[in-house]
């Protein structure tokens, strides 16, 4: 017997996979024939590999949800708008700064037109997905949510409280990803209908109301952060709700 138990154990994975040289294979065979503990272990690992191979079709049957595919498409499109990101880094800072100054008017214009709809579309898709998976524990405390956002994701957003007058109930918060970056997503129910408030940090946009995918999104900016309120179309008075949110986040 030339191989030790330790050497044999190190070769078990490739041995089970049949991915092992002739010399090692012979050494393994010799050892396993004489060492019942190693032989048992080899047999169980081979059995696990076999059962996984047999189950593979079932394990490969899970498919990604269509909402995720839609979000990825939107992300792809959004990131295609910013092909300059990598090139920017290679530019000397002075040149980059001059270019930013010279084109800031233009960039601002581009960033507020089509991309507002695109941003709203991404957030609406996220709104639909997150409300499907969010468990409703019957209302949560705004302070806790604020703390949670700060602790887990480093967001420092003011979280508007539940409001009986507005028939609004805070149910939770998560992190949301879009082509533009990471945002805070605060989830509410208004008469049991889903309402979302997104905080897009470090990005100012012009105020707008966008209708997309049967949802309404109200955007406003303050202190270089953009807030986006999303609800199903026809959910109460969204303008009034937006004013409540604006007041509460001040």
């Amino acid at each position, binding site marked *: 017997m030339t191989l030790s138990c330790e050497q044999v*154990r*190190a070769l*078990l*994975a*490739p041995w*089970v*996979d049949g991915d092992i040289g002739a010399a090692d294979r012979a050494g*393994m*065979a010799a050892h*396993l024939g004489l*060492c*019942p*503990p190693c*032989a*048992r*272990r*080899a*047999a*169980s*690992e081979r*059995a*696990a*590999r*076999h*059962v*996984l*191979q047999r*189950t593979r079709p079932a*394990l*490969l049957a*899970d498919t*990604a*949800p269509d909402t*995720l*595919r839609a*979000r*990825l*498409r939107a*992300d*792809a*499109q959004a*990131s*295609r708008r*910013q092909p300059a990101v*990598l090139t920017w880094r290679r530019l000397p800072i002075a040149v980059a700064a001059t270019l930013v100054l010279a084109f800031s008017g233009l960039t601002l214009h581009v960033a507020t*037109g*089509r991309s*507002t*709809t695109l941003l709203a579309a991404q957030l609406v898709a996220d709104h639909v*997905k997150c409300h499907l*998976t969010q468990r409703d524990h019957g209302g949560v405390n705004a302070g806790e949510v604020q703390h949670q956002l700060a602790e*887990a994701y480093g967001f420092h957003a003011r979280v508007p409280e539940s409001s009986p007058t507005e028939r609004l109930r805070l149910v939770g918060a*998560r*992190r949301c*990803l879009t*082509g533009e970056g990471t945002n805070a997503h605060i989830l509410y129910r208004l008469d049991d209908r889903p309402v979302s408030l997104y905080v897009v940090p470090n990005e100012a946009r012009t105020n707008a*109301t*966008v*209708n997309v995918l049967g949802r309404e999104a*109200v955007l406003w900016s303050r202190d270089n952060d953009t807030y986006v309120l999303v609800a199903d179309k026809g959910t109460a008075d969204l303008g009034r709700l937006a004013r409540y949110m604006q007041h509460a986040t001040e």
Partner: protein
Amino acid sequence: MAVLPFRSRRSAVATPDPFEEEALAQTDALYRAALRLTRNPAEAEDLVQETYLKAFRSSGRFERGTNLRAWLFTILMNTHRNSRRDAARNPIEVDSEVVEQAQALPGRAATPEDLLLDATLDVDIKAALDALPDTFRSAVWLRDVEEFSYAEIAGMLDVPIGTVMSRISRGRKLLYEQLVATRGDEVQGTPPGRRDRAAVAGPDV
């Protein structure tokens, strides 16, 4: 407030980008891996989305002609590792010896192992996989389900090839024990400890 219509024709009928198309073809595979890693559909979606965002942003760094699938899995694994680190949840490295000792079953070889396992249900296998510690679960999944090479997996997990082999080996062993325990309880209604019989000759090698 103005209502903005979809006004750019270019955005509506954008030309498909070959890199994007090839990358997006891996959505299912990445989602499945993410689902096994996070064991939570919403978190899995976020992980996949973050993976693609990083991939799209750094597509310039991807070398055409190399393995895009492996590259995407590498980003997924890195992202998962980092998010776990950020969230300061359970450390990713577990003491594998402790796990093995805790789950080890007495030696047994009386029944043909493969026969017992052939009766195992797909749901049991998923549950058994999910019960494995992260380190072993990802190694086994990448090897036995996604069928990556040891070298590719070493790159994804950022560990040496020897470590990959050892994780696969231990992962399979734990998976087997998990399945035997599940199956044994169901079939015989006795706890695993009572089921050891005299060791018979080792299996053919």
